[in-house]
């Protein structure tokens, strides 16, 4: 357990989470979800975050994505103190720093594939024509250049997720945050999407945080962070982490059998 709390070298760290706690309040009743998380991530890393439902995985994901703020603790993203930002500043920070890839793709209906990909650039203040040409380039890179004028609902799930990845990459953000990116896809398409993410990480040095509950998907990452009950259970190389995971599972099922 102590191993996971070792703070990695802070200099130039992309993600630096220090003793982050998060509680939800309903009717003044405090429900703590994260109990003090410490994670540091260097540029170029590929981290998978695993944990069962209720482990605080989604909450951590929202905090990492600057969609939510911690109750206490510090979060520095690309050198910026996230906790000190206003809502507008957070939006700009998300826009410049994070590319989101969601489980349900989250493309905007009634908007062409090209316009979907161009949208982050529009919010970044880039002109319409420049946004479109950059979006087209990005679509070409994920192999969907010819579908630019289609509507998202005319595309298959795998294609939609590729569009979402193109949208995440279009502003060239230091971090890609992929939340169960293969959750709605079949195995073959999932492998394609993971191959694309792997390629981005290997060839462009793209930093990626991948949230998943599937060990097979997590196996694509270099590093694994396992959460349990709002604490970091494991933080280390993915291969070793997944081996431990299997052992834990076997132990759990063995104990179930013995009962």
């Amino acid at each position: 357990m102590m191993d996971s709390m070792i703070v990695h070298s802070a200099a130039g760290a992309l993600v630096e989470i220090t003793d982050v706690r998060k509680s939800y309040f309903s009717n003044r009743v405090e429900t703590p979800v994260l109990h003090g998380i410490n994670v540091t991530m260097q540029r170029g890393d590929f981290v998978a975050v695993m944990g069962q439902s209720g482990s605080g995985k989604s909450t951590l994901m929202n905090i990492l994505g600057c969609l939510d703020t911690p109750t206490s603790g510090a979060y520095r993203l690309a050198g910026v103190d996230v906790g000190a930002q206003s809502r507008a500043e957070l939006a700009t920070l998300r826009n410049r720093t994070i590319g989101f890839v969601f489980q349900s793709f989250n493309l905007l209906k009634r908007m062409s594939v090209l316009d979907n990909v161009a949208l982050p650039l529009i919010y970044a203040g880039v002109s319409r024509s420049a946004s479109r040409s950059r979006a087209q380039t990005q679509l070409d890179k994920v192999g969907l250049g010819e579908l630019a004028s289609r509507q998202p609902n005319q595309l298959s799930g795998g294609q939609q997720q590729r569009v979402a990845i193109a949208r995440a990459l279009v502003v060239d953000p230091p971090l890609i945050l992929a939340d169960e990116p293969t959750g709605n896809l079949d195995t073959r398409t999932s492998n394609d999407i993971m191959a694309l993410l792997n390629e981005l990480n290997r060839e462009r040095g793209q930093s990626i945080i991948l949230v998943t509950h599937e060990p097979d998907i997590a196996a694509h990452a270099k590093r694994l962070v396992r959460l349990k009950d709002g604490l970091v259970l494991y933080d280390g190389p993915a291969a070793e982490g997944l081996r431990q995971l299997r052992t834990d599972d076997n132990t759990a099922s063995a104990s179930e059998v013995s009962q």
Partner: protein
Amino acid sequence: MKLIHVLSEALRAMLANPLRTMLTMLGIIIGIASVVLMLAVGDGIKLFIDKQLSVLGSNLVIVQADSRKAVGARLRTGTVQTITLDDAEAINRLPSVKGAAPMLTTYSQISYGNDNTNTQVQGTTPISFAIRNLRLAKGIGLSEVDIASASRVAVLGKKVAEQLFYKNDPIGQTIRIDNQSFQVIGVLDNEGQSFDSGDIGEVVMVPISTARVTLIRTATPRTVQYVVVQSKTTEGLNDMVADIYDLMRDRHRIRAEEPDDFRVVNFGEFAKTGEAIATGLSIALGFVGAVSLVVGGIGIMNIMLVSVTERTREIGIRMAIGARPSDVLWQFLIEAVAICLVSGIIGVALSAGVASAVSSTGKFEMAIGAKAVGIAVVFSCIVGIFFGFYPARRASKLQPVECLRYE
């Protein structure tokens, strides 16, 4: 985010649900059309009155016979012809009067060659040309000599001349009025409606003496139907009317307790009545417009709130990829304003259609001015901003995490 982008987003949102957008716009369309029509009616009536006065001449009253109220059976105004040429001359001599023109009118068949028309013939004197602002397009007007000698001469209204002579010169030609020959000596330049004779362009003027001899049988040789009187000054108009009452009661030997056997019709009063009607109509239309705009605005607010709820997830996605709260605010605000603006434009078009339909009847001139269009645009924007702000603000205050969880 650039304005053009926000506008295209607004357009996209409007077209996503065209029926709903159209129904939402209806209230604003009716409201703006009412407001624009209100202005057009007001302007139109003012224009109408101004035109009347310029056709008729200003500061005019008409003195006409009125049935004696003391007599048992009341007769229609003008049927008891108690006004005479002598009355007209006496009125003309009043110091407050600039001119008084006796009138005898009838409808007659006018013909020239194979063409004929039925129109009003006015028997009058040269004074009437001066006080009624009559200008001549061609030829000359009636003269005192024509009156004295009951010459068979006629001055044609513009439209009568066009009907009978097309592009030919009518001057010197002989026309027939009720089968009697008259020589055309002049053509009037005036056009438009006048209170006493309908369209001034459709009138034929002849010497009053000739009219009496050839066209109009009167009770006595000196009876006239009415006298048109102009005061010297606008301020002196009411004093002049009082002078005329005193003079006429004296001349007609009406005792103090007896009612008048004549009446004085003041066109200034007509104009005032017209303006009052215009104001009333404007207030009514303005009220309808205001109510419509408020109801339409509430409809817009309602639909925008529904839209914000429906698009919660979209808002979450936009915020996640970098939309600031102000971007979201602008997006929804501009959408509301765009709906109102388009409604305003349709409303202006609708009112322009109504105005041109009314104008085409020829009875009333209605024009949609730049002022009306400007006011429509400003009003629609105000409605859009006022009723769109709350939903837009609500959208901008949404939390991205909650929006992304929203199904």
